[in-house]
């Protein structure tokens, strides 16, 4: 890498400055010399002088055992060959130390720059923990293997330094170097075979500085070139003088890390996982998660879990896999009513240590309210993290879902929670909204949906084992009783069972929004479930088949699907009702505020849908309603703004000015124009006065606007007073104070 050598020479010239006092040559300033490197006119004068040095320098290397300590007999303008290496090395060390201080800044920024560079090498897309881990691993693995390599790479550097320090830099260094290189290699090789430690000692001290300089000049190529050696050189320096380097870097490290965190916070956190004690378990979980994913990708999830369960009985290797597989585990899922904190439905896979669900739900609800109210008005708390547990929260209109997970859940898991929640809201929204604490009002299928999210499989084997262990006497009694009661019991049982299955079929068919508009019936006998009725399409017939066949399977019955698909569209009034009902449910999803109009088999949707995922959800639900042939979207993706501001006098919270009062009209108009939006009322004050006074003042101002608005006939439910910063966000300190004394409005989807 001749480029890098050139640049290193630049560096070394730079470094030489502090050595100057030992030289009698005053005229050569290294900085002035630098440009001369590329000037050809100086070359000729030097060639002549150079030639002998080659030979003698060889001697020097071989001769290094007899070390003299005279630094001072370095003579200007001549290549003083018999000079022993040791003193030079010492002077280099001094230089390095002096310069190190000046360069701390450079080193620290260089390190963060280099790290980034290094990581981009490993992974072009992301600055990821993977990449860093890889780097660290490499470093460790190569530490020993590279020792020889290091010595070799240092070879290129040492002779240059020695020569440059001794040659008074009158002449073209480039030439000197060119002529030196051939013998230097050998010289160093021999030297290092004699005394490797001293050699690396000399170099190690100067290396950090040299690197930092070079990085300044050309960060990219340097990053590439030095990346592998950097680690080693730092290590070497630490070995030499641990305190010095930590002292030198310590003060700047903080700044460098801070800067890096600001740049790429997540990546930095990920990168630090491996080194921070507390998060080690999380890091491990992640590693294992990655392994699991690999396995899962090659085999099906069920297959793996079965495999694990089979292997679980014995082999230690399998135990390991099991441990890995349970690293991320759903501990509990709660569906909680938003306001009251009452549990609507819960699933806890671990039957032995169930959580006190009511208390957990209450606490979570309190925390959510607190966070929404006091910390981040309007936004949602999505995650609570403690130790190896995580509680993932996802909220909809009247309820939220809380999933307690141990270990590190994969990101797709959150999508699954979201899907589950929208499914629940869509199908059972009304029941959830009107929940009064009576679990009997919640259909059993809610629990099935949650169980599905938790991936709980009923563990047949363990139940079977338990049954086996029942005492023999008990079994005898049961058998005797059974022989008496069975004939009667079977009869009763069948009737009860048939009734129960019919109810189940009815509930599940009714739960499906597409089928709920049809009248479907079921009959159950000893072997069959028969379903009858008329639906509008084959698709719906199959849908019913799908739903009921699941029940049939559970109950060990055959399914006889006698549903007839007729091409008669369902009653338009029913469809219109269903469209309205579904739209209202959809409005509970975050970022959705729509009004749907059904006419001539076509649904026109107006209002707001703020993200594309929700658009898909809305489309799929509306278009699946029987009788809907077309969905026309007339929605906006961004909320409109309302520029109206109502201004107040200094320290006043009454609306006295009639022009200000008239502005309420524009609020009224806005709300009429956007029936799916409500308005936040946000008060502000100027920068004078005490905090607590202003805090009170801005609430009073907001309240004054609220009361005036209501007095003018605006529906109070469509207004919400929200407490934000004292000062308005868009007014700068140099603007007049009165501009800040206002109440503004912000539309939101309720």
């Amino acid at each position: 890498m001749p480029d890098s050598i050139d640049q290193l020479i630049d560096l070394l010239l730079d470094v030489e400055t502090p050595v100057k006092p030992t030289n009698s040559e005053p005229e050569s300033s290294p900085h002035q010399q630098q440009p001369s490197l590329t000037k050809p006119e100086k070359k000729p004068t030097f060639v002549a002088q150079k030639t002998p040095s080659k030979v003698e320098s060889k001697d020097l290397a071989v001769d290094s055992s007899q070390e003299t300590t005279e630094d001072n007999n370095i003579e200007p303008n001549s290549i003083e060959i018999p000079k022993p290496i040791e003193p030079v090395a010492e002077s280099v060390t001094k230089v390095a130390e002096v310069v190190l201080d000046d360069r701390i800044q450079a080193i620290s920024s260089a390190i963060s720059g280099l790290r980034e560079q290094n990581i981009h090498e490993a992974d072009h897309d992301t600055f990821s923990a993977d990449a860093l881990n890889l780097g660290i691993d490499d470093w460790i693995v190569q530490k020993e293997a590279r020792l020889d390599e290091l010595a070799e790479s240092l070879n290129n550097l040492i002779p240059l330094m020695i020569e440059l320090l001794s040659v008074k830099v009158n002449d073209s260094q480039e030439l000197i170097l060119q002529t030196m290189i051939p013998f230097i290699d050998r010289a160093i090789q021999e030297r290092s075979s004699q005394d490797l430690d001293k050699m690396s000692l000399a170099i190690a001290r100067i290396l950090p500085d040299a690197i930092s300089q070079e990085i300044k000049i050309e960060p990219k190529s340097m990053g590439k070139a030095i990346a592998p050696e950097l680690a080693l050189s730092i290590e070497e320096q630490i070995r030499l003088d641990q305190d010095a380097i930590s002292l030198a870097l310590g003060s700047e490290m903080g700044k460098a890390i801070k800067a890096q965190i600001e740049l790429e916070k997540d990546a930095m956190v990920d990168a630090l996982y491996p080194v921070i004690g507390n998060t080690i378990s999380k890091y491990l979980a992640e590693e294992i998660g990655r392994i699991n994913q690999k396995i899962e990708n090659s085999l099906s999830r069920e297959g793996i879990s079965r495999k694990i369960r089979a292997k679980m009985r014995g082999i230690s290797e399998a135990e390991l896999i099991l441990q890995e597989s349970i690293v991320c585990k759903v501990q509990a899922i709660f569906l909680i009513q938003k306001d009251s904190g009452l549990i609507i439905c819960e699933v806890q896979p671990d039957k032995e240590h169930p959580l006190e669900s009511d208390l957990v739900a209450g606490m979570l609800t309190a925390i959510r309210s607190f966070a929404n109210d006091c910390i981040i008005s309007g936004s949602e708390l999505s995650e609570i993290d403690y130790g190896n547990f995580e509680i993932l929260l996802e909220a909809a209109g009247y309820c939220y879902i809380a999933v307690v997970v141990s270990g590190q859940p994969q990101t797709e898991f959150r999508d699954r929670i979201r899907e589950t929640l929208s499914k629940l809201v869509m199908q059972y929204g009304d029941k959830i909204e009107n929940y009064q604490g009576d679990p009997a009002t919640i259909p059993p299928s809610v629990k099935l949906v949650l169980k599905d999210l938790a991936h709980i499989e009923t563990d047949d084997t363990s139940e079977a084992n338990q049954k086996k262990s029942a005492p023999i006497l008990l079994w005898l009694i049961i058998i005797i009783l059974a022989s008496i009661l069975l004939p009667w019991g079977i009869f009763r049982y069948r009737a009860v069972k048939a009734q129960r299955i019919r109810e189940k079929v009815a509930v599940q068919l009714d739960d499906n929004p597409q089928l709920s508009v049809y009248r479907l019936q079921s009959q159950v006998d000893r072997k069959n479930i028969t379903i009858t009725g008329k639906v509008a399409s084959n698709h719906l017939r199959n849908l019913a088949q799908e739903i009921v066949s699941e029940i049939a399977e559970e109950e060990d019955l055959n399914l006889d699907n006698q549903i007839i698909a007729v091409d008669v569209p369902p009653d338009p009034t029913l469809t219109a009702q269903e469209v309205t009902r579904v739209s209202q449910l959809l409005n509970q999803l975050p970022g959705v505020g729509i009004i749907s109009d059904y006419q001539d088999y076509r649904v026109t949707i107006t209002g707001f849908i703020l993200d594309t995922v929700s658009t898909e959800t809305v489309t799929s639900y509306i278009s699946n309603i029987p009788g809907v042939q077309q969905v026309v979207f007339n929605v906006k993706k961004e909320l409109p703004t309302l520029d109206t501001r109502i201004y107040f006098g200094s320290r006043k919270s009454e609306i006295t000015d009639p022009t200000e009062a008239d502005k309420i009209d524009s609020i009224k108009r806005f709300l009429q124009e956007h029936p799916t939006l409500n308005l936040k009322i946000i008060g502000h004050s100027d920068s004078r006065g005490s905090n607590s006074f202003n805090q009170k003042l801005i609430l009073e101002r907001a309240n004054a606007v609220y009361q005036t608005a209501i007095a003018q006939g605006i529906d109070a439910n469509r207004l919400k007073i929200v407490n934000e910063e004292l000062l308005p966000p868009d007014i700068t300190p140099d603007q007049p104070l009165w501009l800040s004394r206002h109440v503004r409005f912000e539309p939101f989807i309720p």
Partner: protein
Amino acid sequence: MSTVSKKVCLIGDFSVGKTSLIRRFVEGVFSEQYLTTIGIKIARKVVNLETSSQQIDLIIWDIEGGTKFKPIVPNYLKGATGAIIVGDLSRQETLDHLPAHIDLFFQTNPNAVAIVALNKSDIIEEHKLTKLRELNNFTANSQIIKTIVTSAKNNTNVDQAFTELAANMVNS
């Protein structure tokens, strides 16, 4: 027998004995030691009603606040079916604040019911007690089931307050 869950809030000024009443009711203990409730504490007890076959799972929210500096966060009151609004008989100002607490609660939950508990009756002399009772009787509002004199320390009327509230919550 079916179990229905209901949210109940305890509100009132600082140090009137909310936490003590809950501990007495749920754990059956009383302690002189004062432990500040930070934010919210939630407790739970199942109540069997004599009058109906129903069980009620009371989810009891112990709500901090009720001082000038820390107003009660109305969000914490949301979704409650019942409340016990507590005053301290030995501190007149806590009784003066009862109407404000009552208003706040019913503003948030217009269909709920409440009981007013005048607590720490054990440290009030008999003749004073009758007078204080008369002065603080909130009968105007039909949703206030009754005003009851309690002592968490002597276990006077604590269970009665909670069970009576529970009984009225299922009826309502």
